[in-house]
């Protein structure tokens, strides 16, 4: 009781109200300043750090995936291009064979045509020359015979039938009497 009586002014478990006010204001200020200027910035830094590490990894991962997709696409395009090239080459080869075949055919036809035309014109010419020769030969023969036998025969010879008959006979005998005609053959 003596102890308590002496220490009534200084009871350690009774707060001094002025100190309560001081402590309240001081700690409030601490809470305010740190809560406004320090902790939020720390959270920002933490978040930025996490982002810098995890975000960097994630970005690298995304880029890797993109690069892989691109590579895959290029490979696919390359394969397609190769297939396309092979197809075009095959087509070209087939086309070339067709064209060659066609040209050969055409050349052969042309050749045949030219040969046929040549033969035709040759035959026609020969026909014409033969005919001409027949006339000439007839005339010459009659003239010659007339000179030899006299002019009496000339009137008769004018009747072409005799000469024609003669010539036909010559033809029938294989043309042997007319050596010049046989040599031209």
């Amino acid at each position: 009781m003596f102890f308590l009586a002496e220490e009534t002014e200084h009871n350690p478990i009774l707060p001094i109200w002025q100190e309560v006010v001081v402590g309240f204001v001081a700690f409030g200020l601490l809470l305010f300043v740190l809560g406004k200027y320090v902790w939020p910035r720390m959270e920002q830094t933490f978040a930025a750090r996490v982002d810098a590490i995890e975000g960097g990894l994630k970005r690298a991962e995304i880029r890797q995936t993109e690069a892989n997709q691109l590579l895959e696409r290029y490979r696919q395009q390359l394969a397609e291009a190769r297939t396309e090239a092979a197809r075009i080459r095959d087509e070209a080869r087939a086309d070339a064979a067709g064209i060659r075949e066609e040209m050969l055919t055409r050349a052969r036809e042309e050749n045949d045509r030219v040969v046929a035309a040549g033969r035709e014109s040759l035959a026609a010419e020969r026909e014409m020359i033969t005919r001409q020769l027949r006339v000439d030969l007839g005339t010459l023969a009659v003239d010659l015979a007339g000179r030899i036998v006299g002019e009496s025969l000339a009137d008769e010879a004018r009747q072409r039938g005799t000469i024609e008959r003669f010539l036909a006979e010559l033809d029938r005998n294989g043309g042997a009497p007319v050596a010049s005609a046989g040599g031209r053959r």
Partner: protein
Amino acid sequence: MVGVVAEVPFPPDVGEFFPEPVVHGWAPWLTKFPFLVWLAVAIVILFFLIAYRSPKLVPTRTQWIAESIYGFVRKGIAEDVIGPEGVRFAPYLASLFCFILVTNMFGLVPGIQMSPNAHIAFPAILALLSWVLYNYVGVREHGLLKYLKLSVVPPAPWYMLWLLVPIEIFTTLLMRPFTLALRLFANMFAGHMILVVFTLGGFVLANADSVLIRPISLLSWAMAIAMTGLELLVAVLQAYVFTLLTASYVSGSLSTEH
């Protein structure tokens, strides 16, 4: 009786904790205690403002220390006790932890050697704020009635409730702030008292009449030094415990079970 060393008042009493006011005879409450509180606030604020004036992704040494303190409370207390949503309480818990740590440390700093927390007023304010916080959080989370029901009605048979509910009201709603405040206050009060006893006790023993007793003063001073080491542990531990319990109460308010 002629002493070998200075005569000291012994045994120390409660008056030890109530020094002379700064201005003699005026405002008896204006002792070194309010100034120590302001000093602690200034130290904490200045340290963090300077350490965090230009934060870098790759921290400097000071920035790293500041981040470690906040990170310790944020991860080791807020997240571990409350869960992922506890991060939003990390600012309050970290401020609380830093303030208590620095004020506790004053009990060991030569020249000060007195923690403001040895005056009940300061722990009381902190405990009151924590009490307001965890009740506010609970009411906001569940609504007033549901929060009260969750806090004070234990899952027990109805015929036991008449006994249990008053106990729960007493412990959960009334005793928590008192225990918080008293735990911190008593640790700081007793810690200082122990140091005073061993230190002054050394002087008294050195001045003892019997020559045989005098050498024991060395043991007493050695104990004072050892106790200072212990007080360092207590200072950190009490800051941690106060913060941890606040987080634990907030966690209890948020949970949907009793």
